């Protein structure tokens, strides 16, 4: 076949080059469309936030007339009426995000270790029950959730949100960890056991270090999940003391006279931690997400 193709090559060259050029031009055009598509809503956030008076988005302008960082400064200094609580709310959001991340990694890796390595429960049982939580949409579960939190004495408590987020994030985390753990030979555990290592030692010294990339992926996923959720926060937290940024944004949305430029500046600042986390841990992220699938 190769031999048959070779002689025809020189004659095809101009056509070949033309095709090449067409492909390159096409992919640059597609790249431009992708860039505009991805950035348009994000650019719109900046367009509104950079405008001191907050009218530009409704005046049909492509650039803000007098771009200024004044709104951002006012938010960071809490020097306007609508943003007096910014840092307090940000701290609450951060608290939820960090605790959900740590708890999901801990609870998820312990369970995945016991089920996948020790085989204390049948794996199919785990997959089945883990998926059970997705059978009823989270948007429906919020209604019984509010009542149950009252029974547990967790009304208007950051821990209610944390419990909900960890519960929803952990099943997915366990599944990803399960798949990734299959790449690690169980002979390692057996060897350690023969050498007299206890179960916690195998977990701490062998399992956790080898699983580090998958743990980073699962942690990032949990963090993005907690940061994405605003509805459980909005429904479960009531007092000003426990308000998070997500709740504040929702309150802005409900208020027709709300200053959109402040709202968008807060939204941009709020988006920074997950973006930073994701790009810092991106290498691991792809590993964890595709660990199960690519083997198929």
């Amino acid at each position, binding site marked *: 076949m190769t031999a048959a193709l070779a002689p025809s090559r020189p004659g095809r060259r101009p056509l070949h080059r033309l095709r090449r050029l067409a492909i390159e031009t096409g992919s640059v055009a597609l790249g431009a469309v992708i860039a505009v598509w991805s950035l348009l809503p994000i650019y*719109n956030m900046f367009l509104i936030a950079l405008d001191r008076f907050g009218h530009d988005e409704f005046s049909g302008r492509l650039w803000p007339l007098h771009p200024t960082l004044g709104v951002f400064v006012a938010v960071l200094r809490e020097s306007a009426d609508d943003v007096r609580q910014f840092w307090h709310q940000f701290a609450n959001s951060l608290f939820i995000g960090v605790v959900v991340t740590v708890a999901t990694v801990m*609870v998820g890796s312990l369970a995945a270790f016991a089920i996948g390595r020790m085989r204390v429960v049948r794996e199919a049982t785990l997959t089945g029950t883990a998926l059970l939580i997705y059978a009823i949409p989270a*948007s*429906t579960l919020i209604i019984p959730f509010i009542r149950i939190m009252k029974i547990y004495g967790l009304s208007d408590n950051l821990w209610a949100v944390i419990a909900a987020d960890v519960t929803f994030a952990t099943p997915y985390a366990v599944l990803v960890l399960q798949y990734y753990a299959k790449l690690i030979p169980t002979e390692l555990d057996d060897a350690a056991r023969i050498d007299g290592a206890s179960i916690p030692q195998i977990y701490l010294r062998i399992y956790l270090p080898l699983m580090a990339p998958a743990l980073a992926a699962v942690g990032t996923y949990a963090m993005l999940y907690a940061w*994405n959720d605003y509805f459980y926060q909005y429904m479960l937290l009531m007092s000003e003391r426990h308000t998070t940024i997500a709740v504040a944004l929702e309150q802005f949305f409900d208020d027709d006279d709300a200053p959109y430029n402040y709202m*968008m500046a807060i*939204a941009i600042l709020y988006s920074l931690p997950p973006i930073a986390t994701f790009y810092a841990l991106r290498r691991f992220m792809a590993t964890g*997400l595709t660990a199960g*699938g690519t083997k198929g």
Partner: protein
Amino acid sequence: MNGMDSTLPLGRIAAAGRPRRRALHGSELAWSLAFVLPYAALFVAFAVYPILYALWMGARPSLYAALLDDPRYIRAAINTVVFAGLAVNLQMALALMLSGFFARPRRWIKLLLVIFLLPWTLPAAPAYLSFHWMLVTEQGLPDRLLAILFGIQGPFWLGSGPLALACDITASVWKWMPLWTLILLGGRMAIPQDLYDAAAIDGATAWQRFTRVTVPLLANLYLISALISAVWTFGDYTPVLFVSGGGPAFASAVVSTLGFSYAFDLSRPALGVAAGLSVLPVLLPILILLLRALRRTEVRL
């Protein structure tokens, strides 16, 4: 079930009568149970209990009769199927194509991927709010771009039910397509280059290489991704709640946003739960398919 056996080393299968579970004794069993305990406790307290509570709240048949009597519910049920059906298939088909584009070995394409992933990393509520402000007036960014590029006046985006629902679908695709592109890209990268080289030597065209090599090898990953995406999208209320607000007059509402409206605006929580539970006949088959697809992957591990 058989999948798990095949993942074990053959020696152990020969040695033990029941290869799936090595019997655990004494402290090993105690530790293993202790390790599962936090997960199990959390699951029972915050998943099983609320699910049973929801089933109990929505158990009365009269609730479903009330739902069917409400024309807004019929509309929302149709909208939910349209929303999830279009959003899932659009984002998966586009993700499959774009994963091929992002697999091209070019420096600028790697940089573009960083920008392309931004929507997924952005928190949902602020991103969808930005969509809302772009579309709610007739002078937003998309209108402006349409006027400059084509000299036409943009429509009143959120003024009619179908168009508002189309905006919600677009926003949902914008947010979630990057995730599936990344996953399918990972799947493509895992396909050995030799297979493509061999196909090329055999004279396969680019299209044949795609349909004969890429498609069969990505099929299971694509199916699992599409099913997970379907499960998430069916319950996802955020795009509808923020982009179109379910308006005008519930014309673009989906079952979950209508459920909120029943539960919190009309103070009929049981009816709200019933609305949410009414998607179960569609969601359960998807979950069963997903379970089977996941098991099939294990067999090939």
